[in-house]
């Protein structure tokens, strides 16, 4: 299995290598738009990869994953507003807050399954969305500008676009590596087993609830990291970061790229954001095209891009 030639890996390697060269392109042309777009793609890819850990491998369809983008972002933003701009404080706190929220939501929603799970994760994220709207001190509905990105002493300057770009790329690679390790570990086997037949996993003695909860918390924490990066990238936080459509976008990325593959969501994020960028250039009403595309993907291209690449080989 491992030695097999997989077109997906080649494509992802080419894409990542191409991305790594982008700062060079930006420096040569002086046009940093592509690099900025790719930073965004990388950050959202990280969120989609983390969602795929629970959805693709664990069978837990969370329609509320954008919550952690929001939590990561809001912790950074709120701390910055209160005068705490050290990344050494902001980042761990953001991850801890994401983990805590994931623990709370996970422990409740994992008591149920299937469609309940989808609705509950959606509802809790909507709750957070309204809470963010209610936070008048932190911009309420309009959101709030972050005037200073996270500071890491002399170690790293996030205001430097190239440095920030490489940081995001490196963190994406680290995240995918981590998830690859998780999925192929004993823990990951239990999670995947619970996906295909939970009753059997329980019958042979695995407390699947606990395993799934830990998995849910890991995914939430990783997505929280993506939220931290997103806030630092846009220098802005607003409730729309955790709007339900954002959660939907993350699901689309994971499915588009190919569920249950570690790197698929990276391709999915790339495809979706590039598609959005292209379509919004064509017409103001681009969502009227992209909506039916989602439906068509569901109906005819269930394996996503990864599945298509697999077909090319076959």
């Amino acid at each position: 299995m491992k030695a097999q030639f997989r077109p997906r890996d080649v494509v992802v390697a080419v894409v990542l290598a191409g991305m790594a060269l982008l700062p060079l392109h930006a420096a040569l042309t002086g046009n940093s738009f592509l690099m900025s777009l790719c930073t965004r793609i990388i950050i959202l890819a990280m969120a989609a990869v983390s969602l795929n850990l629970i959805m693709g491998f664990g069978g837990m369809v969370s329609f509320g994953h954008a919550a952690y983008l929001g939590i990561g972002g809001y912790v950074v933003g709120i701390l910055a507003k209160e005068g705490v701009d050290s990344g050494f404080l902001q980042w761990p706190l953001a991850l801890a807050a994401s983990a805590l929220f994931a623990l709370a939501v996970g422990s409740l929603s994992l008591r149920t399954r299937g469609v309940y799970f989808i609705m509950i994760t959606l509802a809790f994220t909507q709750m957070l969305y309204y809470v963010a709207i209610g936070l008048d001190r932190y911009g309420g509905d309009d959101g709030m500008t972050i005037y200073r990105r996270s500071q890491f002493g002399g170690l790293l300057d996030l205001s430097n676009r190239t440095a920030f770009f490489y940081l995001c790329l490196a963190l994406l690679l680290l995240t995918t590596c981590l998830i690859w390790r998780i999925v192929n570990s004993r823990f990951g086997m239990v999670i995947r087993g619970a996906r295909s037949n939970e009753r059997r996993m329980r019958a042979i003695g695995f407390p699947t609830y606990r395993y799934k909860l830990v998995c849910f918390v890991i995914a939430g924490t990783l997505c929280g990291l993506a939220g931290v990066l997103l806030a630092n990238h846009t220098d802005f936080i607003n409730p729309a970061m955790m709007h339900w459509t954002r959660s939907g976008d993350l699901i689309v990325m994971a499915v588009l790229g190919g569920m249950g593959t570690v790197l698929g969501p990276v391709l999915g994020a790339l495809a979706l954001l590039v598609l959005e960028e292209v379509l919004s250039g064509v017409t103001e009403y681009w969502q009227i095209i992209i909506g039916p595309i989602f439906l068509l993907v569901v109906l005819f291209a269930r394996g996503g891009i990864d599945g298509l690449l697999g077909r090319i080989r076959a």
Partner: protein
Amino acid sequence: MLYFIEQCLNGVQLGMLLFLLAAGLTLIFGIMDLVNLAHGSLYMIGAYFAATFAALTGSFVAGAVMALLATLVVGIAVEVIAMRRLYGRDHLDHVLGTFGLILFFNELVRLIWGPAGMTLPLPSQMLTAVEVLPGVYYPLYRLVIILSTLIVALLLYLLVMRTRIGMLIRAGASNREMVAALGINIKLLFTLVFGLGAVLAGFAGMMQAPILTVQIGMGENILIVAFVVIIIGGIGSIRGAFVAAIIVGLIDTVGRAFLPDLLRMFLSNNAASSAGPALSSMLIYMLMAAILVVRPEGLFSASSR
């Protein structure tokens, strides 16, 4: 106290609207096993149709009737073109496909009606207030909403429990294959049920239109609250949806009205007015969490009936 009664009535009124949406969702889910996120789009479309037709004909009632028929047509078209292909797929497919439909409908509405919202003016005889209790005046139109929704709920109950179609619907909910094997045209039944759900959603949107502005995205926010109703009431149970809708409507409305004042008794004025709105919007979700702890399958789940 008078204010409290008024808020309670508002809560019941919101609850009735939530019930219309939740009933359609739970019917569609119970019978076709379909998660329909685009249900909120039908609610929005019902409101837009009502506002348009009422403006065209100059009559609120004629506009309402035409809007219901038009929403029914849209609902059936959506079922035949898209939903039919999603039956039997897993829930993730439903979520994705109907998510695409929401984007499509929101943009379509923006294309046709423009980005600005619309208003649906009430006929002048509806603008009065009625003395419901000595000293308590309540807008007539909101009473009309409560009453008409109650009638619809009753009709729905009679349809599901007392007619042949309703019998098929209930049979379809408990065992689809068996109903199909007995020679019932299950395809037609599914289309009918989806159309029924669409009409209920359109009716809710239409009734709500004069109170709120008709705008893009109006369906999604209330849809998520309708999900909360279904989770609390138990999926597949119309009775559960009814009870839960009223509970959620009451808690949400009364919470928003009184929680900030209540907080002022414990907190400083400043802290209370900033925490109040955030906390009161959390109330229904906290209720949902509490129900999940005690009864994960909801108050009236269809399986434990």
